[in-house]
């Protein structure tokens, strides 16, 4: 079974990746000035020593490394330094679904908007639709998403009053950030779809299909789209990494309590354990997604072999 060997290999590689990320960031974090117990009011040495003992920060660094590694293998990231009422696992468990929801919805926006406009552009090549869609697509790619977010807030929140300004909870609060998150990727996907479709539509079998008397709609959707799917799926890998990065900014603008906010805050506040937990989660996520994309790619394109 090719697939299983492939997955096994990938799994092995993932372990190595996670271990490298863990090790590098573990030592980097302890190199950086600033500890987790700094506040505006300075701690007395006695209190500091007690706190360090509580979080095992007074042990030799090698011992800390192995303890932490051992706990991490058991998926126990320890207590959060800064959010003292929670363990890292709890923080991540609360943040992950939020970010996932945002990311998925952003991706769905990107794929649906991108592919629809790509198909329309390809079918009506060199028409007004084509030009305006491609112009919009390039704009989507060119405008950084926080600028886009600011513009959309002015339009949809202030002027039209369609959406609330920020927050998280109901559907109206998700739409704007998810759209901003998906916009640049929608742009890329539109262009990829258009190019892919144009290539396919020029082929002989499409002409045959038309000749058989199939309706243009069927031809485009059944044959054309399949050809366009390939570049789009292969683009999803990098897109997922981009979605993760983009969500850092959008979570901040729209005050969304996802992993991205935890991630940045943890790094800035030197919350070692939380930063590590979030980092490893992102790493695994990215790896799994890349693997899934490769897998999907091999499914839709028989020429691609898993290695």
């Amino acid at each position, binding site marked *: 079974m090719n697939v299983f060997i492939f997955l096994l290999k990938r799994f092995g*590689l993932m372990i190595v*990746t996670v271990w490298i990320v863990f090790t590098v960031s573990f030592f980097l974090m302890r190199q*950086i000035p600033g500890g987790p117990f700094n506040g505006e009011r300075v701690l007395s040495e006695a209190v500091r020593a007690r706190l360090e003992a509580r979080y095992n920060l007074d042990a030799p660094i090698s011992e800390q490394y192995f303890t932490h590694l051992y706990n991490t293998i058991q998926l126990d990231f320890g207590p959060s330094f800064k959010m003292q009422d929670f363990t890292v696992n709890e923080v991540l468990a609360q943040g992950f679904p939020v970010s996932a929801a945002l990311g998925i919805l952003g991706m769905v926006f990107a794929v649906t908007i991108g592919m629809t406009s790509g198909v329309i552009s390809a079918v009506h090549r060199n028409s007004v639709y084509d030009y305006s869609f491609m112009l919009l697509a390039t704009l989507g790619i060119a405008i950084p998403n926080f*600028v886009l977010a600011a513009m959309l807030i002015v339009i949809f929140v202030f002027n039209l009053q369609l959406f609330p300004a920020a927050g998280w909870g109901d559907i109206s609060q998700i739409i704007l950030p998810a759209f901003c998150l998906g916009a640049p990727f929608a742009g890329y996907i539109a262009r990829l779809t258009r190019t892919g479709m144009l290539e396919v539509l020029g082929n002989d079998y499409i002409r045959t299909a038309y000749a058989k008397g199939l309706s243009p709609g069927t031809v485009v959707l059944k044959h054309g789209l399949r050809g366009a799917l390939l570049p789009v799926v292969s683009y999803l890998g990098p897109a997922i990494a981009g979605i993760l990065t983009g969500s850092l900014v959008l979570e901040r603008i729209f005050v969304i309590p996802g992993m991205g906010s935890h991630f940045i805050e943890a790094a800035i506040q030197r919350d070692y354990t939380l930063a590590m937990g979030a980092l490893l989660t992102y790493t695994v996520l990215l790896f799994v997604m890349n693997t899934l994309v490769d897998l999907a790619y091999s499914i839709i394109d028989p020429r691609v072999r898993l290695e």
Partner: protein
Amino acid sequence: MSIPDHHQSELERLTKILEQARGVQGVSLWADAWKRLKRNKAAMFSLWILVGIVTLALLTPVLPLQSPIYQDVKNRELLPPQGESFLFDIQAYEAETTLLEKQASAVQSKDTDEYARLRLRIEEREQTHPIELYWNNPGIFVKSMIKIRLVIFGDYCFPSVFGTDKLGRDVLSRVFWGSRVSLACGFIATFVSLLIGVSYGAISGYMGGWVDNIMMRIVDVFYSIPFIFIVIFIMSFLSSPGIREPLDNYGIEQIHVFFLLIGAIYWLTMARVVRGQVISLKNEQFIEAAKTIGATRMQIVFRHLVPNVMGIVIVYLTLTIPAVIRFEAFLSFLGLGVNAPDISWGLLVNEGVQVITIVKSYWWMIVFSGMALAMTLFALNFLGDGVRDALDPKLKNK
């Protein structure tokens, strides 16, 4: 010794062919691509826009702009765009210095005490010269450009047609000075990614076997590392005293390291692409030929393979530059980018986003910097598309 007859005729035939071949004007890949690029109006338009932007950025110090950093919070805070021109007070200042110098030379022989006092005042005035106040530690080159500007335009400054910011600084001037950092970041970082990516990919592809395998697995591993985090680490690492001081001694500023850092992140895709190209090229005859004449491995990689993958590399460059500029903006937005008083477009846009509220939107703070950023990225993207089409042999006759 005579050459057999049929050989003789063969030689003549070959010579003839050779002469014919010499007569044909070879069209190089580049010339051909350039021809096709010229036909692409959008790409050419973008190219001219970019040339314009880069030229303006380079010439910024000689343009009659206001000071990008001088604040006048009391009188000029958050003014909307306006056409009133602005004057520096530099000439008056220099005139006063000249006057002092005249006085000094007049008393030089008579009153040594008075002379010394005047000299001291002149020296002090050098210390507080407005150039120091209006521009942030300009280097020698930039300083001489500013002096040229002062000679040409005097005290005249272009009006604040882009409005002023919350510290009363001219937005137009800040957009111009910001372009220097943003563009430099885009180009330098991309250049770094080019160096790393091309060498890495070429070596990996050419060596093949287990070396290739390991090198590519390393790339895979890197692909799964969320780099934003590493950047946060390194940026705060760099500002720690133990690291900062030795770097300062070598004249390396945080911003330079920042360029390198971004470059070092963006080499991955480049490495993959180059590797793929090299693998398909390395069994070609010209490589075999190079081997037979005794070229070393490194010579083959860098003298024969790399030039042949330049096409695809250039296509990726035009895609990487906007990505890097956007990444810088993104970092500035998170407060991890350039430090004041340095200016970048990302910083300006971030400042603009902060003053968009229901109560009042100071739109000029975001519109102009955002447009400058978007226009550059837009043009780079279009140009990138154009270059790709132009270099893509499949599209040759379309």
